[in-house]
């Protein structure tokens, strides 16, 4: 049936006319598919693209009672204001400080964990360890914040232990002191995500052929040498891709996490860029200003992604795109 129509169409005198008619016929044939696709496209238009248009309020003085289109243009005023803001220094220091320490410690740890997990001989034990280590990933930061608050409380287990060991005499209010904040954020993040982040590496390791290990054993390689000279080179492309993503995410503090753990007492160490955007925007209602700060962040993150991608491509021949 289908084919018969096609031949008839191509026999039409005007070639262009035929093409157009064919196109319409095809469109009509996929009207159900197009309905499904366009529902998705409409959703993306509303929930992804309208907010992108909304970014223009960063260059306007948007007022809550007005429409976005009617708000007066102010050019780069909000960006200038942010760059002159007293809090800028602290915001940059906290954002980059937390992210860079997470990158230096939090990035290699899952790789090391996966390497050692891969060396376990008992498949059953390996599976058990994996299952247990993924679990915290599925707990919400609110729950984890509750657990941390319990542990770090004045009568919590940490203070009890330290006092018991005679290391301190008075309980310390860890969450109320800025100097402990970074440590708490980084440690709890590693606790939550160590096992989960190792999944991808373990998957990559599973595809290394056993012959490579056998050959290394023949050559007299020990366990560490095999980990270093066989396993690690094989997962290098995976590491490269995840590294690109990690670098491009340095401005993304873990918002969910910090929002739970911050309070007015540790503010000087917990005010990262995402929190600043949230506070100025939602809590203080400075919509245009907050959007400008958020936009600045997105643009820098995008540039970082491109740089990281380019550098990794050069060094490693692996890239995201």
């Amino acid at each position, binding site marked *: 049936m289908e084919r018969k129509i096609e031949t008839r169409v191509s026999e039409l005198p005007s070639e262009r006319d035929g093409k157009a008619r064919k*196109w319409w016929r095809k469109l009509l044939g*996929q009207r*159900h*598919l*197009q309905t*499904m*696709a366009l*529902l*998705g*496209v409409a959703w*993306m238009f509303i*929930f*992804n693209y309208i*907010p*992108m248009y*909304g*970014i223009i*309020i960063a260059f306007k003085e948007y007022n809550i009672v007005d429409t976005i289109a009617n708000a007066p243009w102010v050019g780069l005023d909000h960006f200038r204001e942010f760059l002159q803001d007293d809090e800028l220094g602290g915001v940059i220091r906290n954002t980059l400080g937390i992210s860079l320490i997470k990158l230096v410690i939090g990035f290699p740890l899952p790789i090391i964990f996966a390497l*050692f*997990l891969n*060396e*376990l001989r008992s498949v059953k034990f390996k599976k*058990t*360890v994996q*299952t*247990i*280590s993924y*679990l*915290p990933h*599925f*707990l*919400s*930061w*609110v*729950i984890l*914040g509750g*657990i941390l*608050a*319990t542990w770090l409380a004045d*009568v*919590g*287990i940490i203070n*009890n232990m330290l006092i018991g060991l005679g290391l301190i005499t008075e309980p310390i209010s860890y969450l109320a002191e800025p100097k402990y904040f970074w440590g708490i954020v980084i440690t709890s993040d590693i*606790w939550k995500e160590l096992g989960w982040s190792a999944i991808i590496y373990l*998957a990559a390791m599973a595809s290394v052929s056993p012959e490579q290990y056998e050959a290394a054993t023949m050559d007299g390689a*020990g*366990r560490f040498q095999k980990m270093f000279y066989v396993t690690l080179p094989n997962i290098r492309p995976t590491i490269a891709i995840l590294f690109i993503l990690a670098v491009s995410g340095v401005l993304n503090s873990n918002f969910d996490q910090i*929002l739970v*753990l*911050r*309070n007015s007492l540790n503010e000087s160490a917990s005010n990262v860029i995402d929190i600043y*955007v949230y506070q100025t*925007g*939602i809590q203080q209602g400075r*919509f245009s200003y*907050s*959007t400008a700060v*958020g936009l600045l962040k*997105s643009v820098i993150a*995008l540039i970082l992604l491109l740089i990281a991608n380019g550098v990794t491509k050069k060094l490693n021949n692996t890239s995201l795109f």
Partner: protein
Amino acid sequence: MWTLKRKTRGEALFDFLNTLGMVLICFVTVYPIWYVLVNSFNDGTDAMSGGIYWWPRQFSLENFGAVFRSEGIMIAMGITVAKTLVGTVAHVFFTAMVAYAFSRKGLIGGKFYILMGTVTLFFGGGLIPTYLLIRDLHLLDNFLVYIIPVLFSFFDLIIFMTFFREIPEGLEEAARIDGANDWSIFLRVVLPVSMPVLATIALFHGVYQWNDYFTGMIYINNTDLQPIQTYLYRVVAESSSNQMMAAVPGGVTRSVTSQSIKLATMVVTTAPIVFAYPFLQKYFVKGMMIGSIKG
């Protein structure tokens, strides 16, 4: 044969230390959760003196009794269950439907649609423009704010498409010859053979819905519409434990403290995830693999 050679002393030591290290990691992972659990089953006043590490000292179910008697907590639980069920079914169905259409060869405009989605992976409107949109759509203080803004995810769509493209074409052809249109092929042919990927995405989105507190925090003012995670956030982060006591009929009893109710609420909130976890874990590992190949 090399593989039959006895383990050297160094090898044996390595295996021993490695196993020991892994046991230690498991302990460090599980113990903080265990600590909360045993304390939640302990008499609240007694627990204030600390020192409950392995097992309840004065076993009590009063904390849980207080949680289940609290109307505020029960309403919030109901909202969480409702948004998780409705949100997950809607998200999985809608995203799978769009993914099915996008994955068909020869879809007019298909390349453009996918480009449109790819852009959203790298750039978005951000907090305030999204907030303004939600406000203009009259979704503030509306249950649908938990469902519609997360109805679709392009990232999940990629995972679906990867799976759908591997379904043998013969299945579809056979249905088409029987006169099925694209809707019935999607519903009766594609969905039934895609259970593993549907389960994976359902699990991820379900966990997201269950754990999300931010949506309830910024878009919802009506406390009868807030989910349990938002409720807990207000208790944990704003450390307004007194608010929690106010929610408990009769306030502080001799054996229940605001801290012990908080712990019991945390346990009740986490229990469904921990119980569902062993059954679902085979799906998410598979899903992560599909996602990581693409992503």
